[in-house]
């Protein structure tokens, strides 16, 4: 079942994580670039916000984000190759 809200929240995580990933690789070879460092700070924040918004509604992306109240959600939500979200 395709859930539009979930898809959009995941897309926001993917996009924010992609920007962060690009900045990490760039900074590995340009470690003193001040513009890159300040964009990293912004990108990190945007990524954390997108992850938090997703996790609150749709379940954990990492095993330390499980709300351990009643069931072990980590294995209840679909795996990313299942096309169930």
């Amino acid at each position, binding site marked *: 079942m395709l859930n539009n809200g979930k898809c959009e929240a*995941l*897309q926001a*995580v*993917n996009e924010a*994580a*992609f920007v962060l*990933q*690009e900045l*990490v*690789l*760039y900074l*590995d*070879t*340009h*470690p003193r670039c001040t513009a890159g460092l300040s964009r990293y700070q912004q990108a990190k924040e945007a990524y954390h916000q997108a992850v938090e918004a997703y996790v609150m509604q749709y379940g*954990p*992306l*990492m*095993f330390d984000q499980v709300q351990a109240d009643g069931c072990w959600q*980590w294995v209840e*939500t679909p*795996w*990313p*190759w299942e*096309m169930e979200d």
Partner: protein
Amino acid sequence: MWSYEKRLQYPVRIKNPDARAAKIIITQFGGPDGELAASMRYLSQRYAMPYRNIAGVLTDIGTEELAHMEMVCAMVHQLTRDLTIEQIKAQGFADYFVDHTVGVYPVAAAGTPFRAEYFQSKGDVITDLHENMAAEQKARTTYDNIIRLVDDPDILEPIRFLREREIVHYQRFGEALRYAQDQLHSRNFYACNPGFDDCCGN
């Protein structure tokens, strides 16, 4: 140490099973220029790197390659999961099916299982970075060929994303190589391995 994030780096949603496409795409899992070899290549090379920033490039690109491997495996899985036995026979998938059913196993397109010889770890920063730049170009060529061979937009979209990542990684490895060359001892005229001694005993 690694942690798992329960998402693909870029979405893979393939609606129509296609065993022929799966047999082509699986080469980017277990083939000579695939993502498994890429990840193992970079993560293995890190220990002999004399420069922390280059060890960082290898760690971060090697980690991203694991995410690419997961995308490729997800594509193979989605292309094969709803096949009937008639489709498996008609689409030339019986030879894979007899050994692996529709499990995902690392083979090249022609069926050769993954081999550690697909990657190198030479213990020489200059040599390894040249290897890595070539590896990114070979992977890019393979993705070009996949784009020539398949026409389902559900397949092409993630394949184009993966192809672009090869180009970005090539760029970063090129910058790492320039850094390594700039660090060479002024008497190391022939760029001998700076991780072992300064200038080959000269």
